[in-house]
């Protein structure tokens, strides 16, 4: 450990940036970023997502009214399956799984060395259950 800089802040920010840059340079992250962009911008998929939202709303209203008609649920499931089965969504899910595996591997490495769960503490809801 460096004794010269007992504060160690500069090294930490340098280390964070180097780690972030290394993550971004992986094929996994590049693929994920592309998949995420397509998921956000594809017009055809947007229409299917809108349809899913509308079916979901119809189902919610039917439930509220105590309706026993099977159509709202069937149509909601169909719309869900259509969105889930869309190649862009499939690609996004697959790309995300690869990134999750990579992130978990790095977190296991960091957490093992530090003796605490780095991702949990550095995450947005860090330490909320302590």
């Amino acid at each position, binding site marked *: *450990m*460096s004794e010269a800089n*007992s*504060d*160690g*802040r500069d*090294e*930490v*920010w*340098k*280390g*964070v*940036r*180097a*780690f*972030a*840059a*290394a*993550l*971004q*340079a*992986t*094929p*996994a*992250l590049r693929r*994920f*970023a592309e998949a995420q962009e397509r998921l956000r911008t594809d017009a055809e998929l947007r229409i299917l997502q809108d349809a899913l939202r509308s079916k979901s709303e119809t189902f919610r209203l039917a439930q509220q009214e105590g309706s026993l008609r099977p159509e709202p649920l069937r149509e909601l499931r169909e719309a869900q399956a259509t969105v889930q089965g869309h190649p862009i969504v499939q690609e996004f899910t697959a790309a*995300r799984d690869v*990134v*999750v595996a*990579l*992130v*978990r*591997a*790095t*977190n296991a*490495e*960091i957490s093992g*060395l*530090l003796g605490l*769960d*780095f*991702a*949990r*503490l*550095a*995450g*947005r*809801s*860090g*330490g*909320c*259950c*302590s």
Partner: protein
Amino acid sequence: MPTDEAAREGADAEGVVMSSARELAKVLAASREFQAFDAAQSALIADRAVHERLQTFERRREELRRASAWGGASAGDQRALEEEWESLSHAPALQAFLAAQSELLAFLQDVGTVLIAEVGIDYGALAGSGGCCG
């Protein structure tokens, strides 16, 4: 072959990621916040009386947490536990530890925020570590 090349590139990039993760852990461990936390934790463990009371308190809290799930914890039990915490939290070793812990947490939150901004992904959420209070 291009696929071999792509696979090699991927493996190389992941090697760099793992070594920079180790490097990050090293500089985090050397930071003032971590050093202070380690020292405070050691001091707390070394303070046998406080440490034993703390362990008893945590055991009791866990018992009450379980009991309250089936309605077996009385308001008196809860109050006794709160009073014990109130008294325990005045112990200097525990106060120092809690202060060091919250400083470390704030520091790690800063690190996490920078990481999210730099990589563009929510690291904690993707690691499956977020939302612990959900």
